[in-house]
C-alpha cells in the first residue's frame, strides 16, 4: 500500500480532534438548538402571520430561515476549526517533526484543510434530519436542499482555508484567531456596512424637467456597487439556491400571471440582491411607463468566485509558509 501524505495528515488531525474535543456533546447541543429554531419557524407559519400564500410553501419557508441560521452559526464555528492549525502546532513543537518526514508542504496544507473542513461538514451533516423535516412539510424541492448544502459546504471550506492561511502567516495563535473572526465579520457585516456607506457616497443628483419646471432629486445607484455585497456569504447562499417554484394566477379578466414564490427568506434575499443590479428606470420623453429592463442577473457567481479566489490565495500562502528549508522567517517565529 502506498501511504498517501494528505490522507496521513488529514487522518491524524481528524483523530486528534476526535480525541480532544467533547464532540458528542457539542454536536448534540448544536442539533438541539437548531431543532428548536426549526420548530419555532414552523410554528410561525400561520396564515395570519406570514400570509395565505406562504402556507403552501411551509417547507421552503422553514428551510430558508433555518439555513440562514445554520450559516450564521457555521461562520462562527469555522474559524475555530482552523485558525490555530499551523501556529498551534508550531507552538507545541509538533510541526517540525512532521516537516522532516516524507510529507510535502502541500500534504500538510491540504491535509490540514481537509481535517478542519471535514469537521465543519460534520456539523452540517448533522442538520440533515431537519432538512428532511422541511422536505416533508412540502413546497420544497430536493434540488434546492442539495444546492444549498453544497454552497454552504463550499463557504465553510473557504472560511477554513482563510483561517488556515492566517494560522500559517501569524506566529501567535490568539492573533490568528482574532484575525480569522475579523475576516468573517468583514465578509458578513463589513460588506453590508461598506455597501450602505458607498450607496450614500455614490448617489447622484438627477435633474428632471417636468411641465416646464426643472426639479432635481438625489438618486441612489446600487447598480454600480452591487458587487460590494456579492462576497457576503448570506447573499451567496441565498442567491445560489435554485429559484423557488412559480405559481400562476388567473385574473378575473382572463389574463394569466406568473408569480415567483419568494416568500421564504432565501428567495427574498436573492431577489433583493439581484434587484440591486438593475439600473434606474428610464422614462423616454412623453412616456409615463418606464422602458422594460431585462430580468436581473444572478449575483452569486461573482461572490462565490471571489471567495474561491480568496481561499486559493490563503492555501498558497499556507504552503509557502510550510515550505522547508525555510528562508526568511517572520519576526519572532522559530522553525522549531
Amino acid at each position, binding site marked *: *500500500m502506498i*501511504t498517501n501524505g494528505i490522507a496521513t495528515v488529514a487522518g491524524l488531525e481528524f483523530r486528534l480532534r476526535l*480525541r480532544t474535543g467533547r464532540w458528542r456533546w457539542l454536536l448534540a447541543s448544536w442539533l438541539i438548538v437548531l431543532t428548536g429554531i426549526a420548530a419555532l419557524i414552523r410554528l410561525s407559519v400561520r396564515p395570519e402571520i406570514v400570509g395565505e400564500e406562504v402556507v403552501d410553501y411551509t417547507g421552503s419557508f422553514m428551510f430558508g430561515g433555518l439555513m440562514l441560521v445554520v450559516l450564521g452559526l457555521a461562520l462562527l464555528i469555522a474559524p475555530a476549526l482552523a485558525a490555530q492549525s499551523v501556529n498551534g502546532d508550531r507552538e507545541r*513543537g509538533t510541526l517540525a517533526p512532521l516537516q522532516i518526514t*516524507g510529507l510535502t508542504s502541500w500534504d500538510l496544507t491540504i491535509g490540514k484543510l481537509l481535517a478542519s473542513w471535514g469537521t465543519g461538514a460534520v456539523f452540517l451533516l448533522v442538520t440533515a434530519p431537519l432538512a428532511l423535516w422541511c422536505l416533508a412539510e412540502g413546497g420544497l424541492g430536493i434540488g434546492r436542499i442539495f444546492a444549498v448544502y453544497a454552497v454552504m459546504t463550499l463557504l465553510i471550506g473557504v472560511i477554513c482555508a482563510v483561517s488556515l492561511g492566517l494560522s500559517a502567516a501569524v506566529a501567535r495563535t490568539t492573533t490568528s484567531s482574532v484575525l480569522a473572526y475579523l475576516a468573517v465579520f468583514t465578509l458578513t457585516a463589513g460588506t453590508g456596512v461598506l455597501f450602505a456607506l458607498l450607496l450614500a457616497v455614490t448617489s447622484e443628483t438627477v435633474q428632471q424637467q417636468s411641465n416646464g419646471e426643472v426639479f432635481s432629486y438625489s438618486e441612489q445607484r446600487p447598480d454600480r456597487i452591487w458587487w460590494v455585497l456579492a462576497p457576503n456569504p448570506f447573499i451567496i447562499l441565498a442567491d445560489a439556491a435554485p429559484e423557488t417554484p412559480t405559481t400562476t394566477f388567473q385574473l378575473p379578466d382572463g389574463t394569466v400571471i406568473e408569480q415567483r414564490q419568494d416568500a421564504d427568506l432565501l428567495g427574498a434575499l436573492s431577489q433583493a440582491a439581484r434587484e440591486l443590479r438593475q439600473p434606474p428606470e428610464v422614462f423616454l420623453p412623453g412616456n409615463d411607463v418606464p422602458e422594460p429592463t431585462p430580468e436581473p442577473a444572478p449575483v452569486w457567481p461573482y461572490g462565490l468566485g471571489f471567495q474561491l479566489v480568496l481561499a486559493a490565495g490563503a492555501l498558497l500562502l499556507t504552503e509557502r509558509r510550510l515550505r522547508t528549508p525555510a528562508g526568511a*522567517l517572520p519576526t519572532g517565529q522559530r522553525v522549531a
Partner: protein
Amino acid sequence: MTSLTGRGGNSGYGEPVVAESVAYDAPHAGVSARGLFRSFGPVGAVQGMDLEAYPGQVTALVGPNGAGKTTLLLILATLLAPDAGWVRVAGFDPSTAPGEVRARMGWAPDMLGFYDALTVAEYLDVMAAAHRIPAARRQQTIPAALAAARLVEQAPARVHTLSRGQKQRLSLARSLIHGPSVLLLDEPAAGLDPRSRIELHDLLRQLAVEGRTVLVSSHALDDLEEFADQVVFVDRGRTVASHRVDQLPAHAGPRLYRVRTLDAAALAQALDTRGVTATPAGPSAVDVQVFGGEANAARLLAELVEAGVPVTGFGPVGGSLEAAYLQLTDDPAVRR
C-alpha cells in the same frame, strides 16, 4: 588556508582531529558543513561554522547558550535554509535535495512536542506513516524503535502521561523510526536520570558502531568525555575548535584545583604564605587557581604536604573537556 577549526592560531589544544586534506577532499556519508552563515534579522546566529561529523563516530556539539547549536542542527535537518555555506548530510545538500536527506536523517529537537491525545505506539505509527513506511513494515520498525528507546512498557500509554525523561526517549525513538544513517540530536540528555543517561550513551555508541553518524549537542561535558569521539566547540556562531576527545591536550592555562584537608586553618595559612588565592568550596575544601599546567599543580601539592598540611584530596575541578570549554569560550581572542 584556514584550518578546519576556523581558528588556526588556537594552539595549546593539540591539532584539529582531521587534517584539512582529508576533510576537504574526501566526501563522506556523514555531515559536512563549511563556511555556514545564517542570521535572523539583525541576529547572526551562525556566522561561519565548519563541522565534520563522520560515520561510525559520535560527534558532540558544545558551546554556551545562544552559540548557534540549535540553528546549525536546524540547517542540517533541512528545516532552515543557510544564508551561505556548503552543507552535505548523508551525501546530499539539504537545500536542493531535502527529500533525500530526510529519508536518511533523524532529528530529535530540543523541544519535546508530541500529540498528547495519542498513545506512544500510535504516535510512532503516525510518524512512520509520515515517513511513508508501508503499514506492514511499520509492524517491525515501531517495536524496534520502542525497544531501542526503552519505551516498550509505555507503548499503550497516552503521550501526555509520560515523564519528561520518557518524552525525551520518545523523541529519540521518533528520530530512529525510519532507520536513518545520520542522527542529529539536540540536547538528548536533558532531563534524563543518571541510569537513562548511561543507557542513552550506550545507545548512541551502539548506533555509531553500526556505522551511523551521530551528532549531539549537549551541555553535559563530563558525560561527553565518556561517549563522544569528537568534540566541536562553538561560540557566538563560530566553530572555535574541534578535537578528538582522546587527544584533548593537557593544558597550560590557569586551572582550578580542589584541595581537601583535615585542617582548614593550616591549609589557609600554607596557601597564604605562598600567595595562592583560594576560594572556599565547602567546610574542609578550597579551590585554588593553578597557573602553568600540571607540573605546577604537582609542585604545589608537594609543598603543602611538606609543610605538614593534612591533605586528603587534590585534583582538578571538572574534566579536561570542561577546562577546554571554559578556556575556549572565555578567550579574549575569540571574544571580539
